């Protein structure tokens, strides 16, 4: 529990942009969990569709996590070549590729 409260505190202290990303990430986790439970309860009949939806959430989550670490001022040392603008541009590019594939995948 202590850990959880510390994390919530950390979230509260983060800059607004990061807050937005955090909320989006939590949403994606929830959405993934819901899809998974749905799959367990109802069955995975159009497997393409389930896989497409689930991977879309996972992929988007990963891309967001990447964006979050890149724009985090604490990580400036590691990403010298990646400015926040560049990071956002990359994020958009990655998401476009991801959703193009997913769109193609779910038929």
């Amino acid at each position, binding site marked *: 529990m202590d*850990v959880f409260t510390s*994390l919530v505190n950390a979230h509260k202290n983060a800059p607004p942009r990061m807050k937005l990303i955090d909320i989006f990430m939590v949403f994606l986790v929830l959405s993934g969990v819901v899809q998974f439970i749905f799959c367990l309860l109802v069955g995975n009949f159009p497997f393409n569709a389930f896989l497409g939806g689930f*991977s879309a959430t996972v992929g988007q989550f990963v891309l967001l996590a*990447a964006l979050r670490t*890149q724009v985090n001022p604490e990580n400036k040392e590691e*990403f010298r*070549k990646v400015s926040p603008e560049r990071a956002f541009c990359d994020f958009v590019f*990655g998401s476009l590729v*991801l959703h193009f594939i997913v769109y193609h995948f779910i038929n």
Partner: protein
Amino acid sequence: MDVQNAQKLLRIAILVLVAGAAVLSRLYSVVNFESIIHEFDPWFNFRATRYLSSHGFDSFLNWFDNRTWYPLGRVTGGTLYPGLMVTSNVVHTMLSKIGIPLDIRNVCVLFAPAFSGLTAYMAYLFGCELKDETAGLLAAIFLGMAPGYTSRSVAGSYDNEAIAITLLMTTFYFWIKALKLGSVSWAAACALSYFYMVSAWGGYVFITNIIPLHVFVLLLMGRFHSRVYVAYCTWYALGTLASMQIPFVGFLPIRSSEHMSALGVFGLLQLVAFADYVRAKVLERQFRLFVVSFVVIVVAIAFAALLGLTWLGVIAPWTGRFYSLWDTEYARIHIPIIASVSEHQPTAWPSFFNDLSFLIWLFPVGIYICIQELRDEHVFLVVYAVLGSYFAGVMVRLMLTLTPIVCVAGGLSISSLLDVYNQWNVPVSKAPAVETNAKVSKKAAKAKEPADAAPEPKEVQGFFASFKSANITSSISKVVVLVTFFGYLAMFVSHSNFVTQSSYSSPSVVLASNMPDGSQFLIDDFREAYYWLRMNTPEDAKVMSWWDYGYQIGGMADRTTLVDNNTWNNTHIATVGKAMACDEETAYPILRQHDVDYILVVFGGLLGFSGDDINKFLWMVRIAEGIWPEEVSEGRYFARGQYRVDSEATETMKNSLMYKMSYYRFPEVNNGADRVRGQRLSPSDAPTLNIVDEAFTSQNWLVRIYKVKDLDNLGRQVPAAAAFDRAH
């Protein structure tokens, strides 16, 4: 023009020349023979490409081929890697759009050399990322010319590997780039080129495993940082999803064990990244308890799930081909069909020297240098080197995946050598030396990315920079070393050229031999026979042959075959093996059941061609024995432990259809001397044929075609009828 521009120009010129040399050295096969598709698999790829260009992409993907695997057919569109065909079709269309109407055959023939030029360029980029431009240029030259790669990419060798090695290098380059910069775009590019690779070659599994392994090793070394997370997770999420678009791959990436390591590392990275994030936010004591309990539970659950799912059969266990990589005896015992392919045999050690020349002893040097420098990308090289060497030792064809790393490592070591010995303005006194040193490191820091630009200037230099500051003052030693290595380089070029020309440029459809006066004599029996089939048999005739010739019959003779090089159905192949291995009475019903009209056998006894069907006969027997152990038995084909074909041969051997068809009428020519086996058939050994008629025998007896007799008009058994006819 200043020095920088001159250098750039020089580099471009060298790269163009290297690409030119790579392309031209692969054209020997066209110069010595003709513009023809080589070997076996390329004939299928060529046939598929023609189908694609005439029927369009959609019907290509839905192609059901009823002219192979009669009567089963093959879902060709869903069981091939379409990357090669699609690419060459795109090239063909583009060329005709810009007014260069090139025959599709020529596009296919010249495809591999053209891509080898690109591969050389990718090797240059890869080398640049690892060390500097010198290393890159050397790697490009080595990879452009190394026989290990040329063997699979001469003109006419229109196979998946032709494009796959280019894509392998591209993917690795993007991976290194993504890892160094921690950039999502480079990782996405890596995923896209991975997708292209998946669409082109089954060997993509190598990438699927080597990148996770690299990340895992980095984790073990305690080198986790956010860039690893960004690069790997983006690559995995996009690449895996993309790879599932290829019909042949389908859901394999989440279902088969070969792909599980990638998924495992993906999950592990999420945990590590999360733990890393939490550690920054909470107190040390809380953290330790949290992490230990959390990580242990999750890993245990994941592992149990993996085992459980494998046990339940949701995740397919490793395939036989994969097992044979770990246990070289596995295929011999369990899957004779895999072991029967010569390129799946373990590599003989001289072929390392033959294929890699002097690079084979520069390779360990390069890896040693990498271990000394050991930035993240050098860890990749080391991991690749270990895996690649192992696989190349296990299977001859995997020499191909080792070659790129050997070339890059060779480039690294030679360029380091040049760094030390090719400095002509080294200052004598100590103080200026330090100055050069500092200049070099400053330059390095400016040119390279954050990874090497660590806070302490001492670390910036690394192991590579120490070469530049090495102080060799004696000109003699410099000259001696440089001249020696120049000699080695020249030897490498001439060796590669020689090997390419002499052993890798043969189409194997047309055989070359020398006349007594030294002039070249071409043996064109294969095409002669296939052309005969094409012109003299009905279009829907079914031709039975051993699977090796299936693709060629389909491509050149355009006739329906029973089995071909795809080897997807072992039972069907065993059926053909059984028909060949049994006596005529047993074989005839099998032939009738499969509507066989013609049987094609390859016989090298007259010519001394050792890759003929009698030499492959034991594999047919073994494969048939795997399915019908009580009807076919390998031991019965050996006369007192020896493989005999003359009068000493066993009765089973003499009665087998394959033996009869091979040696029918043979004692009439050449005194019955079999030049391959070194044995002699006397006229009394001449076999008689009852169920088939000889239809065609090529000029040098290399290919013999037999027509299967129809049922007898009077309702007698066919062998009995034939015996009656012979008697009267």
